[in-house]
């Protein structure tokens, strides 16, 4: 086989690891991994949620010391768990979870993580802004420099993480699910950029879930399953899609399970969620809502499309009761809840899958069972004040097993779960009984494909059982596949309403504001 252009393909591998093993308690996250990544190529790494992809990337980047085994970067062995050594060997990493301190301004965060050695140890603010203005131009203009990280939308934070890794002029780039938060257009731009870097001789390891994206960008692919390397790195041209998904799922494939959730809707009630001329104040990066009218009825999935930052976030937080309504009213099941606190809305059957699962969806330091039971505890307001821990823990583990959360014990903190498993935890809590209306913001973000299918069939199952679903997504295919009706948001208002079958062109035009 002829190897595609790549100046350094015959030399030492850019990354070589031998018999790496990592375990957390009784969980063997990585098991005897030996892997060579040829220089100047794009290597994809795939696998189910909890397969060990992030752990492998962290070991290579020096953030996690392996229990055994060695890592060589460009021929030099790296001391285990030494970030600096990995960095000075030319390796940079984009994390699945955010790695920038929330209270830092963008300029400060870049200075912390990507500063060049020649800069002084004391700086002036204007100097920082000048130094970083070119780098951030593409992620939201130079005025973003003085913004704090916590005020940025997740998508912008993600782009910033990528910018941060790219400015360091690394020779080896590790990207852990960089596309999970990107729009399709932004994904294409990123892939274009990665190809450019590869042609300059940079070696790239990218963790992906969508096989379409693997085919689009990668030269080779490797598959992790249960902490073992089961395939590759093999040339992408030599592996069929079927072989790849077999390798990912393994010998006992997930059969399409039916969702066991019974929705609590009484059949008479038709209008489950209603927004009447609702307006809200703008936030740092989003317009507020401008007189929005919206209904979700029983037995329907209403899709919300739109380019990120056109008010979707405001919409979700207004419905959840997390930001104030300046005008208009919100009704749940016919009852006015415009000023009701979130817990009241929960009791009215509202369930929520938030945009940022790590800061809004779970308490990272709390144990799994407590995270899982939070809703049941809210519901207990007027009941007997004592609870049975045993029962709560058992219910939590049953719900998590249904969603195939990979965990060790119900007492472990939620932050020890892999990214996709956190999402499953949130879903296992929100998609439980008592649900009447579900507001799902990017529910399949970061899930492997069998879990993605499971979520989609669950949403359909909920609808068929009588619930109403408001689905906010940046994945048009997902919206087209699931939505009974589709609304397009632009600049804080709903600018177009569509019914199936959808016209991709028309929806796309509406999203860019062409209909205005």
């Amino acid at each position, binding site marked *: 086989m002829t190897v595609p252009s790549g100046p350094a393909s015959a030399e030492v591998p850019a990354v070589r690891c031998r018999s790496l093993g990592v375990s957390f308690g009784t969980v063997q996250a990585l098991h005897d991994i030996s892997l060579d990544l040829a220089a100047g190529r794009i290597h994809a790494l795939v696998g189910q949620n909890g397969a060990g992809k992030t752990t492998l990337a962290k070991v290579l*980047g020096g*953030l996690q010391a392996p229990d055994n085994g060695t890592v060589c970067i460009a021929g030099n062995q790296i001391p285990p768990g030494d*970030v*600096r050594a990995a*960095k000075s060997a030319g390796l940079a*990493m984009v*994390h699945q*979870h955010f*790695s*920038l*301190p*929330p*209270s*830092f301004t963008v300029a*400060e965060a870049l*200075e*912390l*993580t990507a*500063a060049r050695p020649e*800069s002084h*140890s*004391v*700086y*002036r*603010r204007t100097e920082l802004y000048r130094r970083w203005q070119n780098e951030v131009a593409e992620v939201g203009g130079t005025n973003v420099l003085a913004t704090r990280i*916590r005020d940025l939308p997740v998508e912008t934070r993600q782009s910033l993480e990528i910018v941060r890794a790219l400015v360091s002029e690394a020779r080896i780039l590790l990207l852990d699910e960089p596309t999970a938060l990107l729009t399709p257009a932004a994904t294409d731009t990123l892939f274009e950029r990665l190809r450019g870097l590869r042609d300059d001789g940079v070696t790239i390891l990218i963790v992906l879930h969508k096989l379409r994206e693997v085919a689009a960008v990668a030269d080779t692919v490797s598959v992790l399953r249960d902490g073992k390397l089961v395939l590759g790195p093999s040339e992408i041209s030599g592996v069929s899609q079927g072989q790849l998904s077999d390798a990912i799922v393994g010998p006992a494939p997930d059969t399409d399970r039916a969702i066991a959730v019974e929705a609590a809707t009484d059949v008479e009630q038709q209008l489950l969620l209603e927004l009447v001329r609702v307006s809200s104040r703008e936030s740092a990066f989003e317009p507020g809502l401008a007189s929005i009218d919206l209904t979700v009825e029983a037995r329907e999935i209403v899709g919300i499309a739109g380019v990120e930052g056109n008010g979707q976030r405001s919409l979700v937080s207004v419905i959840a009761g997390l930001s104030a309504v300046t005008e208009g009213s919100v009704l749940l099941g016919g009852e006015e809840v415009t000023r009701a606190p979130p817990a009241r809305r929960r009791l009215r059957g509202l369930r929520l899958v938030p945009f940022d699962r790590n*800061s*809004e969806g779970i*308490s*990272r*330091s709390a144990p799994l069972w407590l995270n899982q039971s939070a809703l049941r505890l809210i519901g207990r307001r007027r009941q007997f004040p004592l609870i049975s821990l045993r029962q709560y823990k058992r219910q939590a583990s049953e719900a998590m097993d249904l969603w195939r959360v990979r965990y060790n014990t119900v007492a472990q903190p939620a*932050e020890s779960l892999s990214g996709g498993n956190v999402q499953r935890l949130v879903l296992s809590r929100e998609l439980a009984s008592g649900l009447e209306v579900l507001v799902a913001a990017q529910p399949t973000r970061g899930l492997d494909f069998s879990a993605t299918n499971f979520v989609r069939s669950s949403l359909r199952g909920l609808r068929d059982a009588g619930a109403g679903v408001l689905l906010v997504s940046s994945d048009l295919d997902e919206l087209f596949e699931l939505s009974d009706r589709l609304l397009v948001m632009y600049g804080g208002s709903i600018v177009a309403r569509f019914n199936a079958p959808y016209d991709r062109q028309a929806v796309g035009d509406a999203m860019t504001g062409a209909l205005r």
Partner: protein
Amino acid sequence: MEQVLATTLRSAAPLVLVAMAGVFAFRAGIFHLGLEGLMISGAFTTVAIGDATGSVGLGILAAIGVCMTLSAVYWWVIGPLGANVIIAGLGLTSIGLGGTAFALGAIFDIRGSMFTDVVLPRPVRGATSGPGVIISEHSILVWITPLIVLVAWIVLRRSRFGLRLAAVGEYPFAARSAGVNPSIVRLQALLISGALCALGGAELSVGTLRNFTENMTNGRGFIAFVAVIFGAWHPIGAALAGLFFGFADAIGIQSQINITERVPREFVLMIPFVLTIFAVWLGGLWRRRTLEAEAGYAELREPDY
């Protein structure tokens, strides 16, 4: 009036110095309740060594050495040994208060107060009335304090070291992925903090007064810690808070002199503390919005020390 302002500056200087120590620790993610213990150790060492050598400079150097050593021990206990930060901090305070009282008896055979001839130089002196009183009779440390605040601001808010320190305190994972070793940065912050506590203690014992008295810090370490929180762990904010608490203290002292016939003494002594509580409450109201916004992110702290 002039007298109140002059007293304010003198009362505030040790508070501000120790508050700076607290800011360094707080930004590195350490809830430092050992400030009081370090401060009194600094006060004692300055007097003891200063008196023995006859040199106030040597006394202060020794105090800095002792406080940095104690800080290193504190770091070792909460870091590598993994003890609870708050408990260990309170332990440090008890050791400081008890240890200095014990040493006073054991080494010098004194109970209560030890007087000394060494004193910090006072650049401006002699005014007895008019605005000159405000700046007169202050020790050199009072004069240097604003400079120290300025340097603290530059280090914390305008230097790469300050960024690393803040990253360690806020989100250790961010620091680690930037190639910073959180444990080392915490040690550095605690050492700086120790040195500043030594200066605060020295100002207390040989700045205004010329003695060391058992328990002479009298809760100032904790008030300085409150100033850190009240000042939103910003060096300037904490310094202003320290100044304010110094002012409350000065009012207390002044009214003690002027109005003790009509108002019960205990009530007058309460004034600084009531003002402090009131100020902290106000500060809390004022910052509630940001705290709420940050609530979700507080979770990002890794329990890794």
